[in-house]
């Protein structure tokens, strides 16, 4: 058992790339669910919009990286939010849940379809779109940084990611103290009341869906840049629920909630993952119980179990307050 590796992996989970991708996705989800009460179970598709917006622009269409950035963060999520929001935001909240989860499945089928290989690279996905990003890196790619945890390129992704997380959080904090943010909360608490005060609830919900989607797309794009590939399996339906667990764990409707939640979640996941792998390798867990591939599946079981337990016993999470908890009052 290599305890050094276990410690290193856990720290990496707490503050590393995975944490950043999912903190951003969960911040977006917080705008949807925490502040507006929208049940978006398709955050993975917004992440995919960011990833594929950039990678298809650069790798498929041969456009400029910066144009790809705009496509992935603004244009794709905007279109997606309109497609999912227009039919459902007038209806009761579980219809949005069904449509967003259906959108995730559509993404999976379309992105993996060999008939669209030319555009999406099907199951293998797209690569070679992030060079411009890494060319800007001030870090030496052969060096290790931050106590030797990250190599140069990773350090650059993590640094940019942290700056993005901080900027987005400050932005969300400011926006939600504005009158606009107060309308969102009013809609969450009582949509009819908000409407009777002359607020166009439908339009406000649509704006919230777009804003949260854009932040999720940023997370997804960073994930594509960090792994240097946009692959369907990185954005399957279940990925959404990593963001959900991060959000509920940290605290719904708190600006810091998703950040704390994502850090704890990925700390725990990375720790159990490396621990189980080491135990399998060391023969402490026999391969008849579990082999290397099955360790990866344990992570998903933990997510499912976490979702059940949190929703049942502590829906407000660590930072949240019961009074501000959309899970309870709708």
């Amino acid at each position: 058992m290599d305890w050094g590796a276990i410690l290193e992996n856990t720290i990496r989970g707490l503050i590393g790339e995975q944490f950043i991708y999912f903190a951003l996705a969960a911040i977006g989800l917080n705008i949807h669910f925490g502040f507006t009460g929208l049940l978006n179970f398709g955050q993975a598709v917004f992440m995919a919009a960011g990833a594929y917006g950039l990678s298809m622009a650069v790798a498929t269409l041969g456009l400029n990286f910066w144009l790809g950035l705009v496509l992935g963060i603004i244009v794709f999520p905007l279109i997606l939010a309109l497609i999912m929001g227009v039919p459902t935001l007038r209806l009761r909240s579980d219809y949005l849940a069904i449509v967003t989860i259906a959108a995730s499945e559509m993404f999976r089928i379309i992105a993996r379809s060999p008939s669209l290989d030319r555009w999406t690279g099907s199951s293998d996905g797209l690569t070679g779109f992030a060079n411009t990003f890494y060319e800007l890196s001030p870090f030496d790619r052969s060096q290790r940084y931050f106590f030797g945890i990250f190599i140069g390129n990773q350090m650059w992704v993590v640094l940019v990611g942290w700056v993005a997380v901080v900027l987005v959080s400050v932005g969300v904090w400011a926006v939600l103290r504005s009158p606009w943010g107060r309308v969102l909360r009013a809609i969450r608490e009582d949509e009819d009341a908000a409407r009777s005060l002359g607020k166009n609830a439908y339009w406000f919900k649509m704006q919230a869906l777009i804003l949260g989607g854009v932040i999720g797309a940023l997370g997804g794009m960073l994930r594509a840049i960090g792994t240097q590939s946009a692959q369907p399996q990185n954005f399957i339906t279940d990925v959404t629920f990593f963001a959900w667990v991060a959000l509920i764990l940290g605290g719904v409707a708190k600006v810091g909630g998703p950040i704390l939640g994502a850090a704890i979640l990925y700390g725990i996941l990375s720790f159990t993952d490396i621990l189980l792998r080491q135990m399998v390798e060391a023969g402490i867990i026999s391969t008849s119980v579990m082999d290397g591939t099955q360790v990866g599946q344990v992570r998903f079981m933990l997510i499912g179990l976490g979702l059940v337990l949190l929703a049942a016993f502590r829906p407000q999470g660590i930072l949240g307050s019961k009074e501000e908890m959309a899970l309870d009052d709708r």
Partner: protein
Amino acid sequence: MLSSSMFHRGLRLLLLAAAAIVGTLGASATIASAQSDDEAIVKGTITDTDDDGARVGVAGVVISALDAEGTEFGRSTTDGDGNWSIGLSAGTYQILVDVDSLPEGVSLRNPDKNPAEVRLIEGDEKSTLFPLGEALVESAGGVRVIQLAVDGLKVGLIIAMCAIGLSLIYGTTGLTNFAHGEAVTFGAMAAYVFHVVGVFGFRMPLIPATVITVVICGASGGLFNRLVWAKMRRRGASLIAALVMSIGFSILFRYVMLFQFGGRAGFYDDFRLQTKWDFGVFSIAPKDIVLMVLSIVVLVGVASALQFTRMGKAMRAVSDNRDLAESSGIDVERVISSVWIAGSALAGLGGVFLAVTESISWDMGFRVLLLMFAGVTLGGLGTAYGALFGSIIVGLFIQLSTLVIPTDMKNVGALIMLVLILLVRPQGLLGRRERIG
């Protein structure tokens, strides 16, 4: 999961690179010649005819070798010339072409001969052919519509059977149960355990295994309700908390089944390979006829039970208006419990049926769940008959949509339909306006 899939991807790239190198050396040897410790090789070339009538290899088709239990022993992906080969030890194998990996517009000419059985002895090098092209029945223009409609009806009936429970649970408790798909998978797998794996070394034919499975599914549905959902209702948990919990259960169950069963597809031994009966305008395997008849019998039975029995009437009453039903003396919790038992039993049966016509996989239920949602929404969320009609329409729509869109994307059609229904008539065909606000 991620790292392992990346590993597999890397491995595949490596293999492809190796294949390319071997190819450029001009050697006719295929990838498997490197696998010298294998006793026998099964190989072949998958080709298609291009527009000029020349034969061209089809790359990227996945072929796997399974034993009778469905355990995978090897797989190969065709190279640029369509060549594939799998090194195996001596024995009898089912060679299966992953139909999903075939390119757009291409299908096996004899889908009945997939998987193909080969018997290998030491030192064997056997070729197995999978000719491509339009299946013979489908070649006539107008007939394909009928063939697809028949297939669609079959799919729709199975979806309907699975979906009635989803709709009734929603109607009686307000819970959008995302874990209902796992009841379908659980049914398919329970039957697999009794039929193929065996319990205490005892294996039984599929039909008794199905009967036991339906009982077990019903019981576990009732237990699930009692241990989890009844408690949540008593605590007055909000519907959204319950919905999030059901998603959690869905993921948990799904990955437990993946953990236990593995990612490969499984098949029952009984009724596996059947020659289709040709009726001129369409052809159908005998097992599919039996399934369709059985589904219709079950669905008519469910409908008459809902219409005429006391419990059925009570279910509809609770669905309609819970408070009114309760105040007129109906034991609502008992009704809900019966709905869970009946709904889960039906979902389990639907799972077995689905596994008989297609295959068993760990995420089959989740995929069907979304089609169920489409069907239930189309028919009207919370109405039993709506679920029935909606699902059949969805089944037909899925199959018929392949006239226009590639087969591998057929489910997208159903999901797009779901979005369109919500735009045009969100309460569904049989639903009422008040349910949606």
